[in-house]
């Protein structure tokens, strides 16, 4: 297999002495930093921590479901475990995953800026995230919470004796971290692009993070309001959601899903940006139909706000409103289809190599296609009645969120790891990890589609024995998946010390971030670049290289 990786001569290569990591020393220089790259690293460490907690909880869920009885833990404990799994994975891992780590690190560099528009707000965002995360952990340790990640009223307000208020406040706080990140990105992308960097020269990663930022800024406040109402209802009984006081529990559903459906796109859009970068780089080709891909991100962001009621088709909403929301749901599926085909055709007449990020990206394309298509099963209201609230839903959103977003996140981490750390990870074992993850993922979640078709409801600690075989398959797959996730953790940490020196541009990629040293300087650029080339202009890159050779020669 040929490869495009070109590393500098390892006998003479050194990590540049002055870079954002070595620029200042001491723990305080990290905790009080305003540097977007350092904040990205702080975020990366924290979300990885929460990912493994959430992952351990997922392991407990799968172990419990190995047998039809609720025998590993009591039903109450199981309810707490899946609630905490959902809350941690969604609010503390998936929502910040790509934007707060890769986005934070790369967006200023990709547009040729020295930092984000508001470095201190960026740092504040991380502290808010930590406060939210710590409070969530506290809620978990001091008795847990069993509302499910959806905080459904009146269950959460009147019927549970667990830490609903603490968890609600934790997510309220973490929400502001997300709002601040989004705000920072929007302002930065609008105001701080380098000379010559027009909107249509932006890498697609920037476009998709921009779209996600709009969703964060407009959607998250609604979640915050909803959580405040839940807390007030629980503590002083204001009654907005209580039918005996003239309130309406359906109102909660509307408010909650008004955020939580767009949140799905907050989670997936940045991942789509990663895939665009990776597929272009490893097929040495401009992304097929750049503007279609860019606008489809924006279209998803816009339509994403008008489909929330498809979570409520069976909740006694008017049949005619179902008609409208089902129709809009079908429309929002189209931009995703466009993206998939555009990525596939990016490969056409390319010059393709199969390094680790590309393998993850292929995994993303397969799994996201399944996740997206099964979403149509649920968007069509007649079939939604049978499939909703079953394992079909669970499988569907895990295909999108884990098969899609987590694959994209890992693709991105492997793609930009040499840029962030200056070192390469061992290629063979990372390719193996990508394949193991893909296989393990399918083994875990595909049986759940069948379980859902058969009608097994979600959030069941015990289930009728006829569903056992498929559950055993799923648990077995989860074991493989666990290995797939542990491997990168091990070799990436290993590579920090023992990895090969990566040099500035190991993948021969075109983005501005690859034209500077790895790891970058604190100020990113020695002088602000003037952008004349299009995004993904591989011919420009070749000319640059030739010029370097002639100048040095």
């Amino acid at each position, binding site marked *: 297999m040929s490869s495009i990786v070109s590393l500098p001569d390892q006998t003479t290569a050194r990590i540049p002495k002055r870079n954002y990591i070595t620029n200042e020393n001491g723990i305080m220089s990290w905790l009080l930093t305003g540097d977007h790259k350092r904040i990205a690293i702080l975020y990366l460490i924290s979300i990885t921590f929460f990912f493994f907690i959430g992952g351990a909880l997922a392991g407990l869920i799968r172990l419990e479901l190995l047998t039809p009885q609720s025998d590993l833990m009591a039903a109450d404990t199981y309810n707490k475990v899946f609630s905490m799994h959902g809350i941690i994975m969604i609010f503390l891992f998936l929502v910040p995953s790509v934007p707060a780590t890769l986005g934070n690190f790369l967006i200023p560099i990709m547009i040729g800026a020295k930092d984000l528009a508001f470095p201190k707000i960026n740092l504040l965002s991380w502290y808010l995230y930590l406060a939210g995360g710590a409070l969530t952990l506290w809620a978990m340790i001091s008795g847990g919470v069993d509302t499910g990640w959806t905080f459904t009223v009146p269950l959460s307000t009147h019927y549970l004796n667990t830490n609903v208020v603490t968890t609600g406040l934790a997510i309220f706080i973490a929400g502001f971290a997300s709002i601040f990140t989004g705000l920072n990105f929007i302002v930065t992308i609008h105001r701080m692009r380098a000379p010559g960097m027009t909107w249509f020269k932006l890498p697609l990663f920037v476009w998709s993070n921009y779209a996600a930022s709009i969703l964060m800024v407009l959607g998250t406040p609604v979640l915050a309001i909803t959580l405040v109402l839940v807390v007030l209802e629980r503590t002083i009984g204001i009654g907005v959601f209580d039918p005996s006081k003239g309130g309406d529990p359906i109102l909660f559903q509307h408010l909650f899903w008004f955020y939580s459906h767009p949140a799905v796109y907050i989670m997936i859009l940045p991942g789509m940006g990663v895939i665009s970068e990776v597929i272009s780089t490893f097929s040495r080709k401009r992304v097929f139909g750049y503007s279609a891909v860019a606008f489809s991100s924006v279209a998803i962001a816009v339509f994403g706000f008008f489909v929330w009621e498809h979570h409520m088709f069976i909740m006694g909403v008017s049949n005619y409103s179902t008609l409208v929301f089902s129709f809009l749901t079908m429309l929002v599926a189209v931009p995703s289809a466009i993206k998939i085909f555009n990525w596939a055709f990016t490969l056409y007449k390319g010059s393709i190599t199969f390094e680790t990020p590309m393998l993850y990206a292929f995994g993303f394309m397969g799994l996201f296609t399944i996740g997206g298509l099964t979403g149509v099963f649920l968007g069509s209201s007649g079939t939604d009645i049978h499939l909703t609230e079953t394992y079909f839903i669970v499988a569907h959103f895990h295909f999108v969120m884990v098969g899609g977003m987590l694959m994209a996140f890992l693709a991105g981490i492997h793609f930009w790891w040499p840029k962030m750390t200056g070192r390469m990870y061992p290629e063979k074992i990372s390719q193996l990890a990508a394949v193991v993850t893909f296989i393990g993922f399918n083994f875990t979640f595909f049986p759940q589609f069948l379980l859902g078709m058969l009608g097994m409801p979600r959030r069941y600690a015990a*289930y009728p024995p006829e569903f056992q075989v498929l559950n055993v398959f799923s648990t077995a797959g989860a074991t493989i998946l666990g290995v797939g996730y542990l491997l990168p953790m091990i070799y990436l940490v290993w590579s920090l010390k023992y990895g090969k020196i990566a040099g500035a541009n190991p993948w021969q990629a075109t983005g501005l971030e690859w034209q500077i040293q790895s790891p970058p300087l604190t100020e990113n650029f020695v002088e602000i670049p003037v952008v004349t080339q299009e995004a993904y202009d591989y011919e420009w890159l070749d000319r640059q290289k030739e010029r370097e050779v002639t100048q040095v020669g």
Partner: protein
Amino acid sequence: MDHISPVIWQFLVKWLTNFAVIPPEASKVAPQVDALLLFMTLVSLVGLTLVILLVVTFSILYRRERNPVATQIEGSTLLEATWTIIPLGLFLVMFVWGSVLYFRIYTPPPNAMQMYVVGKQWMWKVEHPGGQHEINSLHVPVNKPVQLTLISQDVFHSFSLPAFRVKREAIPGRYTTVWFEATREGTYHLFCSQYCGTAHSAMIGQVVVMSEDDYKKWLASSTSGVSLAQNGERLFASLSCTACHNGTPTARGPNLAGVYGSTLTLTNGQKVTVDDEYLRQAILNPSARITQGYAPIMPTYQGQISEEGLFSLVEYIKNLNSNYRIQQTTTTTELAPAATAAAVGTKGMVKP
């Protein structure tokens, strides 16, 4: 196969022989839903195969060994239009087809048998009009449309019947309805599919589909002796509804005989059709909607009647065709003021 543990082997054989990807089709709508599911699955498989084929073919044809230099292509409006319009068209077909089914599943036919379901942590209570009560089971006759009116007395629950492909949320504070027509005798799963707290996964039961004769036998053997409407009549008297809603010319409350299904004009000029939900709200929150010509003097019964009691009252008012019996009880009260309300209630129940 001696290297495979016999336990696992038997387990697999048993599973493979019973393998199913869909639950039994036991209702009239089930095959229709399955047809759409099959269509969607086929479209998805074709779509997925296409994506995989494209990726694999291009990966083979244009791998670096074979094609060292990429050819830059800007895009193609024609191709992009193709993969915008074709998926859109397919999705719209699914939308229309799905919506037709949705309307079918949630629009009960007028001749449907009526049953009432109360969800509570953590059981389903079914009330039949004939006075049969069930917990965590539902007995229905085959080939007859059955309409369920659902409510929850605490949190959200969801009444899920996978074999019938129907499901409906039971919501606190409002009625929802769903209907089905069972086509195959047998016993099928009944699940609560909306997370409702500790024993959510124990809130399961069964729906038993019986032949017409068996169903009649079951009805006769399980009746509590007091039909739902009779229970409603008892409540109607004991809650003193008769004091105002007695149909006399001087009555302070509207006449309720024949009110179900009629259209009322409210004091604000709004017109409403009287259905189960309207009656429920009129009992619990009477001042919200006052019939034209009446004063807002009715007290609220919030917190005084159970959901089962409300179903009884609704069923009673639904079947109320004349005020004869109400007037009888009120005259009895006037004639014998010493008689207790309870005695009046009993009297009203035994008289024809």
